[in-house]
């Protein structure tokens, strides 16, 4: 039975954390929400580092059930935990840090091999150093490998990239994607970064002031307009596209999806490869059919399917059906009224920018 069941309650200073979740027992589940919404506390409760009331069940194993007075202490839970700061032991070398957890699990339970962890995180050349001689990004990679080497049955990651600058983040993200592809360990990933969520997560849980406001597949949640997540400045949708062709003369690559095709800056990808893109609502504008020539390359035929509030009262979000895919456009209310947009109306969807994710 491949499933995570969490039912946890914990009073915090400003609000009560209350979560009752059934999550997929495979892939990456992101806990997403603003700072102070209880994400980290929820993760700590799952680990047993904080004491919530309720039940924690991981793929059939019960870690906590207060009704039956079961509470496994942290060190008896087969989990891996990556903290926000790398938290390597300063008195141990990189190798000794990595072996700290490995040596404490019986050989029969070691499923993540040393070499696999080394190559997944690219740290084989750092082993004899002390933690003080590593960069922030290297430290966090070692911390992730250290957690993996305990062959956890659940990997908990608390904003592992938050303490790093943008360049270091870009350095680590590919390693995290690698984990996701190569290992069959379910991951609970706390984040308040949309980019990380879009790139890494399969499943998304939204938390606000200790309450779960939504839980579902990532693409589904990111496109829902009724959630505060999707009303703000960064609302947008994810699209899975296929690399179709390159235009060498103009240095462009053509991506196809069911609603048509998108031109993006030239990508070193072979035709046929899948590419995940994110289209921010603020970079989508609308025109009525038959509009004249435009500098905007990506023009798709779509239909208005509904409207939703945007963060600023001057704006509104328009949900669009483009060849069966959902797109979001953020336009001013004034434009909506001037164009006379109503549900069912055919429009030209102009995409100014596409963010390439993976």
């Amino acid at each position: 039975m491949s499933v995570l069941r969490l039912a946890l309650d914990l009073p915090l200073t400003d609000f009560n954390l209350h979560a009752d979740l059934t999550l997929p027992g495979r892939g990456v589940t992101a806990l997403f929400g603003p700072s102070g919404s209880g994400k980290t506390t929820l993760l700590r409760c799952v680990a047993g580092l904080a004491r919530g009331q309720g039940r924690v069940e991981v793929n059939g194993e019960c870690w906590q059930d207060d009704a039956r007075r079961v509470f496994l202490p942290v060190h008896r839970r087969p989990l891996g935990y990556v903290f926000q700061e790398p938290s390597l032991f300063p008195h141990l070398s990189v190798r000794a840090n990595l072996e700290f957890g490995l040596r404490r699990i019986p050989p029969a339970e070691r499923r993540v091999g040393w070499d696999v962890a080394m190559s997944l995180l690219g740290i084989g050349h750092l082993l004899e150093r002390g933690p003080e001689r590593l960069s922030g990004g290297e430290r966090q990679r070692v911390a992730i490998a250290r957690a993996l080497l305990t062959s956890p049955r659940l990997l908990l990651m608390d904003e592992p990239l938050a303490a790093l600058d943008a360049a270091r983040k870009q350095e680590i993200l590919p390693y995290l994607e690698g984990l996701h592809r190569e290992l069959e360990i379910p991951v609970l990933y706390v984040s308040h970064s949309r980019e990380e969520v879009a790139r890494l997560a399969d499943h998304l849980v939204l938390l606000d002031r200790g309450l779960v406001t939504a839980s579902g597949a990532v693409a589904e949640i990111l496109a829902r307009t009724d959630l505060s997540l999707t009303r703000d400045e960064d609302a947008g949708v994810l699209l899975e596209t296929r690399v179709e062709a390159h235009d060498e003369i103009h240095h462009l690559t053509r991506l196809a999806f069911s609603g048509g095709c998108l031109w993006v800056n030239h990508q070193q990808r072979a035709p046929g490869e899948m590419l995940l893109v994110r289209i921010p609502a603020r970079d989508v504008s609308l025109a009525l059919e038959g509009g004249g020539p435009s500098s905007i390359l990506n023009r798709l035929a779509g239909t208005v399917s509904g409207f939703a509030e945007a963060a600023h009262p001057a704006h509104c979000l328009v949900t669009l059906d483009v060849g069966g895919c959902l797109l979001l456009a953020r336009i001013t209310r004034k434009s909506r009224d001037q164009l006379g947009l109503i549900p069912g109306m055919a429009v030209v969807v102009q995409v100014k920018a596409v963010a390439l994710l993976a």
Partner: protein
Amino acid sequence: MLSAEDWAAIRLTLELASTVTGLLLVVGTPIALWLARTRSPLRGVVGAVVALPIVLPPTVLGFYLLVLLGPQGPVGQFVEAMGLARLPFTFPGLVLASVVYSLPFVVQPLQNAFMAIGERPLEVAATLRASPWDRFVHVTLPLARPGFVTAAILGFAHTVGEFGVVLMIGGNVPGETRVVSMQIYNHVEAMDYASAHGLAGVLLVFSFLVLLMLYSVGGARSFWGGGPR
């Protein structure tokens, strides 16, 4: 220059200080751990009691210890009921009194060291399958090592330097409780300033070397280490 009696006093002092330091590290570690980690309302009270010997005149401390350990005192009666020898004016009594007297000098550096480590390394160790005892041995102890060095040096040095408590509870029994500070007092009482100079010089040099060690090796900015984060 030093007489046989002086050498006996030095040997006794070193024996006392080593025994007391060993006991203090054993007794002081759990107290310091508790003080560093607890959220109990008793924390303030226990902290203050442990620190009392810093501010109390040693004679006051020695007086109460004499009352406690004496034949009429609760501890004295308990010891007698156990069939053990009496405590005042004996070496074991002096050891017990010195442990109380030097306790804060061991507990406070340890407490500061434990507080400086914080919770995080222990949480990390727990997520890496280390049991509480395993965490103490393999994370807390190595990370608190500078604190242990400071605590041991201070505990040892402070015991060597005690006088008032010895006077009250140990007396002046040769080979049993006559420590260096006591022997210096005897020399001065007997107007034998030359002998007093010899022993006093030994203590002076010893104290300076101890402090030199603390300030250079430990890099200590103060006796008490880094203080809470």
